[in-house]
């Protein structure tokens, strides 16, 4: 196996607040290989965006990376001189965001913003950089790229703005493109076009992609491998086929069953996950998912499960795992939940924490 392009080990990012330290990212480790498409999924506050921002050195105040290593081609970004890190971030590792309108400068022309990204890292004449900006817009399939380069961001539609952002991200032919919910604000037909573009870039330019999303469908369509995060930690990681077909962590399993599928012909009751994601100032003891887990055993309350191999390239952090939940705990029969059970409606007098 070749050396990974990016190696994140035991990454820890904290936010110091008046109420205490929020453990936003808590011991996250993973590898990204050359040309790979990796998905990071989880719900709001699980630490997926903070993991990306930690890699980019963009953690907002009062957040700080307090531990771990982020190695790009062997060099630890957290221990390099600031100028050297700046050379890598933005050139070799680029990032695109959910809301292209607030990421673009409203008073600068689209083409110039792409040029700026290039000029920050190399010496080019304005004529060359302007030509390149147009060819990048063409590459991301913006129609009439010459005219659009002269427009301002507000003159573009949401989809075209996101394409402009991607063109900016590609300006220096990065080895890694981190995309943080790039399609969440877009309509589905536009989302499909942007995902198609990312697939094309991954295939043709061999740009490695880290796709951060809450949408499991997006991961299934784009990624080779997926990491599932919960409460600042990785709970499961593996090849997409494995994870979607035979998830081993109860959180992954439940998440997959809580989304309606457009291709499902049977109307089964959705499985919802009871309760709320935990407080990250004082996370639950043992396994952080245990208060919401339908398959917890005594050990889950006190011992934190390690992220252990459960198959070829597949790791899960669970003392029970779904194989046993099916064999011994009747997980199969839990899929069809009795009416009312999963909506909190029959928990009379009790607080539904949804």
């Amino acid at each position: 196996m070749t050396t990974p392009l990016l190696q994140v080990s035991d990454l820890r990012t904290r936010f110091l607040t008046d109420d205490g330290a929020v453990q936003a990212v808590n011991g996250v480790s993973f590898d990204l290989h050359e040309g790979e498409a990796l998905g990071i999924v989880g719900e709001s506050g699980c630490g997926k965006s903070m993991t990306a921002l930690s890699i980019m050195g963009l953690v907002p105040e009062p957040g700080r990376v307090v531990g771990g290593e982020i190695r790009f081609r062997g060099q630890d970004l957290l221990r390099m001189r600031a100028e050297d890190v700046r050379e890598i971030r933005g050139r070799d590792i680029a990032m695109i965001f959910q809301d292209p309108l607030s990421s673009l400068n409203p008073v600068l022309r689209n083409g110039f913003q792409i040029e700026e990204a290039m000029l920050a890292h190399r010496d080019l004449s304005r004529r060359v950089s302007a030509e390149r900006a147009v060819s990048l817009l063409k590459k991301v399939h913006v129609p009439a790229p010459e005219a659009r380069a002269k427009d301002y961001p507000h003159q573009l539609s949401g989809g075209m703005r996101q394409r402009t952002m991607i063109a900016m991200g590609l300006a220096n032919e990065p080895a890694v493109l981190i995309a943080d919910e790039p399609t969440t604000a877009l309509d589905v037909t536009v989302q499909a076009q942007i995902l198609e573009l990312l697939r094309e870039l991954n295939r043709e330019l061999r740009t490695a992609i880290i796709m951060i999303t809450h949408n499991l469908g997006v991961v299934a369509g784009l990624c080779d491998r997926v990491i599932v995060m919960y409460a600042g930690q990785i709970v499961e990681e593996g090849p997409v086929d494995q994870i979607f077909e035979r998830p081993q962590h109860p959180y992954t399993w439940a998440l997959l069953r809580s989304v309606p599928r457009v291709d499902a012909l049977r109307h089964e009751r959705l499985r919802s996950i009871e309760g709320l994601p935990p407080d990250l100032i004082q996370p639950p003891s043992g396994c952080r998912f245990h208060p919401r887990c339908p398959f917890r055993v005594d050990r889950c309350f006190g011992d934190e499960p390690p992220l252990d191999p459960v198959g070829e390239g597949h790791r899960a952090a669970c003392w029970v795992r779904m194989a046993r939940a099916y064999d011994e705990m009747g997980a199969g029969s839990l899929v069809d939940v009795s009416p009312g059970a999963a909506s909190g409606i029959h928990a009379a007098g009790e607080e539904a924490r949804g």
Partner: protein
Amino acid sequence: MAEIDVVEPVPRPSAGEPLVRVEEVVKHFPARLGASVRAVDGLSFEVRRGECLGLVGESGCGKSTLGRLVAQLLPLTSGRIWFKDVDLSQLRGEKLRRQRREFQMIFQDPYASLDPRMTVGDIIAEPLDNFRVARGRVRNERVQELLRTVGLNPNFNNRYPHEFSGGQRQRIGIARALAVQPSLIVCDEPISALDVSIQGQIINLLQDLQRQFELTYLFIAHDLAVVRYISHRVMVMYLGKLVEVADSVQIYADPRHPYTAALLSAIPVPDPKVERKRRLVQLQGEIPSPISPPSGCRFHTRCPIARAPGVCSEEEPPLEEKSPGHWSACHFADEVGSVAPWARTASGGA
């Protein structure tokens, strides 16, 4: 078509007397230079008692405006909306106000739709106060009962919205909508702002309430997967017009409008095997402006099967019943299957 195993969480109502009938409804908003935004531009449908009728479309198609028209929150430019035997479009003042009690809404943003300075009890009781339904002890008992109904602690009535999570706030919004026992609840993207695991809880709650209180929903969303899941029938809207209306199982298995086929093909499915086989119905360009919509069929500028120039750019296709209960506004409805092979051959499975 093959027989489909349908186990529905809420039984499908039999086609009976419609609860609400919408006839040729138009809503134009004034724009600059005397032009107007044709948000809802002449459409008709009915809502049956006890059903969940889904309404989907992309941003700017007019779906939220239509929801507000049905909920009697906006006056019509023209057309009629009948509630049972009453023509609501003819009512004014106090008479209209009294009818409004029959229509409640659940909004998308659980943060913006609850007044942060009011207690949860007062928020839920506001419709009771407005329509002078209950006062004093009866009012408080009703609030507590409503909190319990939506799965919240009844003693939370003195708390404020900021003390609750997004999902809990949406439950408060639902309790408020239920307070005056409306005939129709318009749900405008009620789960779009919530986390994945919480969305399931709210959908399940809405279905349980529908069964328990025999509610009728108009359920608006941009996500066809969610709409198809919760609805008995689905309407698809494009640029102020209805393009397809059908049973929620039918519309997926056999879409009869190319726009529906495109929407269906665009939704990512959480299954890598299905994703690898999926073929996207590519739409050209972007949604045209509702100030000057295209001639003929409004979808012809982006349609993969349009004859343009030709009948599609010249004649507006009427919404016609192509097979029992399945309506489509397309000159070439029979050809839609050819562009949506994925939709036709899907074997699916929950």
